[in-house]
């Protein structure tokens, strides 16, 4: 038994840590979808841009300055993406808003290509998080432990905000019924901006954790984690924050188990297969509330 643990501990740790990082991104997807019914394709790229901000800022500033500045810049980016690309399309057909999201994702990726030249950049080592420690027999980085804890704390804070603050109530109202909320005098644009700000901030934190674990930052580094996080959000029931977090952990851990078992060629394919199976039995995801048409 002891030998089994030493062999598989790294997989489990890796799974939990990547699960946490997916969770921080997935929450962004779920919140934006809950409010706007929009799959924010650009969210994965905002995650990558956060990585590059950190690389470029840290080259000239100490970590204590570059870290918060990266979060601020990412929030500004998330906010402006919403104002430029989604606000004008407030009452456009849903498909056009989707294309606008894909357009922003294209734009961010190609801008990163153009500015960085495409070569992988080494993510700066953040003093405390990236130092390595050994748990039992597996050596890994501090970030593997920090991620799950930080994720749960942040999500708990967010759930408190959603349930017990004015802006939180406004968000819940808007996600339930967009038009009526607007009629009730809720300033829609402010609520939506707040959603993007929170979503981007969490994605920024997620990217710091993610890139200190996987330190090569390339323009398309955020594409796959973004997609996995979205799958996690849908898997957990899109629109429900706890669902997104739990979905993310399940996907993170199952992905690593697949790699341990040795079927790695299909680890990504397995994630999608898992999603399709769940959707067959629970068409709106694990925790999503079944929305039935009012006839």
């Amino acid at each position: 038994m002891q030998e089994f643990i030493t062999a598989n501990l790294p997989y489990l740790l890796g799974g939990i840590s990547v699960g946490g990082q997916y969770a921080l991104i997935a929450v962004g997807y779920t919140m934006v979808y809950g409010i706007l019914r929009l799959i924010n394709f650009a969210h994965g790229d905002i995650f990558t841009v956060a990585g590059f901000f950190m690389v470029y800022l840290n080259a000239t500033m100490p970590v204590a300055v570059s870290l918060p500045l990266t979060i601020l810049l990412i929030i500004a980016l998330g906010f402006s993406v919403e104002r430029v690309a989604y606000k004008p399309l407030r009452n456009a057909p849903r498909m056009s808003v989707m294309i606008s999201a894909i357009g922003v994702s294209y734009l961010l990726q190609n801008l990163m290509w153009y500015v960085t030249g495409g070569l992988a950049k080494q993510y700066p080592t953040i003093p405390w998080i990236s130092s390595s420690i050994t748990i039992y027999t597996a050596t890994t980085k501090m970030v593997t432990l920090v991620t799950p804890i930080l994720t749960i704390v942040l999500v708990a804070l967010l759930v408190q905000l959603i349930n017990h603050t004015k802006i939180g109530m406004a968000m819940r109202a808007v996600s339930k019924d967009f038009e009526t909320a607007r009629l009730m005098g809720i300033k829609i644009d402010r609520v939506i901006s707040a959603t993007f700000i929170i979503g981007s901030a969490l994605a920024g934190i997620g990217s710091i954790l993610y890139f200190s674990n996987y330190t090569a930052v390339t323009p398309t580094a955020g594409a796959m984690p973004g997609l996995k996080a979205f799958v996690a959000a849908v898997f957990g029931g899109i629109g429900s924050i706890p669902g997104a977090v739990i979905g993310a952990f399940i996907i993170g851990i199952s992905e690593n188990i697949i790699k341990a078992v040795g079927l790695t060629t299909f680890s990504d394919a397995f994630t999608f297969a898992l999603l399709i199976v769940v959707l067959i039995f629970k068409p709106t995801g694990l925790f999503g509330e079944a929305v039935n048409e009012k006839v």
Partner: protein
Amino acid sequence: MIGAAKFKKLFALLMVLTLMLPAFALGETAYAGTIKIGVYEPASGDNGAGGKQETLGVEYANFVAPSVTLSDGEYKVELVHADNQSSTDKAPSAAQTLVSADVSVVLGSYGSSVSIAAADIFDQAGLVAVGLSCTNPQVTLGNPLYYRVCYLDPFQGTVLASFALEEYGAKKAYTLAMLGEDYGVGLVNYFTEAFKAAGGEVDGETFPEGTSDFTAYLTTAFNNGAEVIFAPTSTPYAAQIITQAASNGITIPILAGDTWDNSVIVEAAKTTDVKVSVSTFFDEGDTSPKAVEFVTGFKAWLNANPDKLVNNGGNDGIAGVTPLGYDGYMVALEAIKAADSADRDDIADVMAGITYDGVTGAIVFDENGDAIRDQAFIKATENVAGTWTFVKVQGIIK
């Protein structure tokens, strides 16, 4: 307010038009004419980084030799770029761009699959193409007009297997390649063949595209007791593998092919105790006069052009593919001189007989159009200073 909507539409159209304003090139006219050479390389997509470094080699060669003298006067040599976005569905139109820009010869591409994808289009146009760093045999196999100045996967795979056996005396190896990338899968195939032939044991995995978490693979390698890891992947994955090997305390030596000969790998391996050794076409430490002249000249040129520096990843480390770009350009000039014309069919006739003593060694083409190469430079990362150190010149142990 109708006015605003109208204004918004006008403003949008104006913006679109200015961005598409065609730039007109007015070159000077000191020459008898211009000969165009096509540069068919990825500038985006997975191999974009490597493609840009290879293009730098060609651009530096064009800087060193901007013209060629034929019997009827001196011709200016102009480069025409086409970005194949390192994907086979974008390759045809990029290749077509060069064919219809009536270039005389095409250089490229970094990445075997896009080169193979363009082979038929160049062949149909009677246009000679010179592969610079694409090592998959199928680039030249059955494509009469496709030549190549670097060695092939079968050679590189076997050389690395020989190195693993000689240098580390390894009995068990673990291989890692990206699912869907024929370069990596091909190299692993030849490495496994050679390694097993010498009595070694090999197992390995193919990871899906976009993977960043390699801890699972490295742990499997460690659990299987592998004495060497062979991971011929593209640059971004290389950096992930090295840093995660370091953070998980795995010190199994890592071997890879030419795609790892890049400043990103040295930077990733810096301050870690991960042993990385790479087979490549060229080594900065090579003391032959041609090599030294190239290294000093290229670094000076690179530092003089800031956006060239960005394309090289922000430092003046020379990637293995850059000198190949240089030699490829020079071979093209030799062919134009030998054919004494810029006409594609004439160049095609003389191409087979071209020889050139390049920075990466003597280039002579065999009947298949591949340069006859019987040795590869092996270099390893020096993790304290963060540079490459020359290890040895490795041939195939018979």
